[in-house]
């Protein structure tokens, strides 16, 4: 037997305040990460691409806080520089799949019929396929490069957004306010832009924010396999891949980009959770 928890107003306020502070704290952290990514070239203590074999594979010390890699490049500078490619690629990817998937979903939900059935079967295929395997196939056909990795991941990830957008459109399409908008003489374009989009944005945006972390990992994963960023571009996944043979002798070469991925993904995931709590309080865990 489940007991229904009784929540007092005071407890409710405590929960709401905690959510608010969590949002501010994690939002600030996420912004800090974005700030580092945006201004990376100005924040690096050394040139991330300058090689100096005399100081190769130095352990962390005061001059090089995270040590140096096998070409003597400063790891801290490379990690800072690497945030740029990884995070911006992930953001670009999330934006592309949100817009494309959202549009497909809206079209399917709005028009229905054969077009809907066709597009949904296509999305079924992508949902049924193991995503990473497909992305590896696409990326290897198109050869390396971080933009191609973004395209490959976009190919497999849009379908989730199409599903969410479609189900939301179906839920609100028959609402009286849609009929009222029609009676106000609004055409299809206005109905979609002014009434559908704002009303389905919540769940789609929450999914998008929660996906940033996943996408960072997938891009780093493709780069690790040599299908994303190409050397010498500083990118966390390819940096880990380059250092993996030295894991036992010089662990900092692998650990610094690894920790960077870990921290960034964690910040974005926790921030995404909090955004969901703020936008959709009904799903909040007690």
């Amino acid at each position: 037997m489940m007991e229904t928890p009784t929540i007092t107003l005071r407890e409710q306020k405590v929960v709401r305040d905690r959510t608010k502070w969590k949002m501010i704290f994690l939002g600030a952290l996420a912004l800090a990460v974005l700030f580092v990514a945006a201004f990376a070239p100005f924040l690096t203590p050394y040139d991330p691409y300058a090689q100096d074999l005399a100081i190769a594979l130095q352990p962390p010390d005061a001059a090089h806080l995270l040590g140096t890699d096998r070409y003597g490049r400063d790891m801290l500078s490379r990690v800072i520089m690497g945030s740029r490619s990884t995070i911006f690629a992930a953001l670009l990817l999330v934006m592309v799949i949100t817009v494309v998937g959202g549009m497909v979903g809206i079209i399917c939900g709005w028009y229905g019929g054969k077009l809907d059935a066709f597009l949904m079967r296509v999305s079924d295929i992508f949902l049924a396929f193991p995503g990473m395997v497909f992305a590896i196939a696409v990326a290897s056909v198109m050869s390396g490069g971080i933009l191609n990795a973004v395209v490959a991941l976009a190919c497999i990830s849009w379908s989730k957004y199409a599903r969410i957008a479609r189900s939301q459109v179906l839920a609100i399409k028959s609402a009286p306010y849609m009929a009222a908008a029609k009676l106000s003489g609004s055409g299809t374009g206005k109905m979609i832009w002014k009434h559908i989009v704002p009303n389905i944005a919540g769940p789609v945006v929450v999914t998008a924010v929660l996906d940033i972390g996943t996408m960072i990992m997938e891009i780093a994963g493709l780069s690790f396999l040599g299908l994303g960023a190409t050397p010498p571009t500083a990118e966390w996944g390819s940096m880990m891949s380059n250092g993996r043979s030295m894991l036992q002798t010089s662990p900092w070469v692998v650990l610094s980009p690894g920790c960077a991925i870990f921290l960034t993904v964690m910040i974005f995931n926790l921030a995404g959770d909090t955004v969901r709590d703020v936008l959709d309080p009904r799903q909040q865990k007690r």
Partner: protein
Amino acid sequence: MEKLLEAKEIRKTFYKGKIPFTAVDGVSFSMERGECLGLVGESGCGKSTIARILTRLIEPDAGSVLLHGREVLQLKGKEKRMLYHEVQMVFQTPQDSFDPRRSLGDGIMESLRNRGMNRAKAKERLYELLDMVELDREFASRYPHEVSGGQCQRAAIARALAPGPRLIICDEATSALDVTVQAQILKLLQKLQREQGMSLLLICHDLALVQLLCDQVLVMYKGRIEERGAPDEVICRPQKEYTRILVNSVF
């Protein structure tokens, strides 16, 4: 009297899977200008379907609807949108009939803006409309969840009045409201109908209400019109068996 609306032999069948359900089965009626016509019947008898066909929210399988002698069902694109200058509707659930993400004022102004009226002019007209439905002007910036059902329904009436229609269809416009608010909304509708000289098609299941407001009443049963007449006639001397049952169940 001038004939405003004439519906002829309207038919509509819905399919639930493969099982057909005839919601409207050959309904014909006409309305005069300035008339208040009641449409009563039990739920599922096809009242709302008629409202939705007259406003082109759904398409009938057969039949014709003439507004000022012009066929409504053939209108397409821009002409179809022009129809909504003439015919407007007030819905059953006031809160759901406004977009939750937009203010009541935006909802009321939507039809004005769609006709190309600029923002300042539309706002002027919005205040006029709010005065007409006896709502404070500050309601323009409120959201549907911030106002009561009665206030929201007043705003919905203002929205229906905005394009200056000849006919307003009220689809159970008062059944979601409590009794005292119902009376206020009905009085308001009656007042506006007289002032603006428009026609009202009042769809409801409350016979007493129809008796109070309507010039004529249509009784619908299982997709057909059973009876038409003055409300007092219909209620005091029902001609058909179903009407008798309906009347007896209320009074």
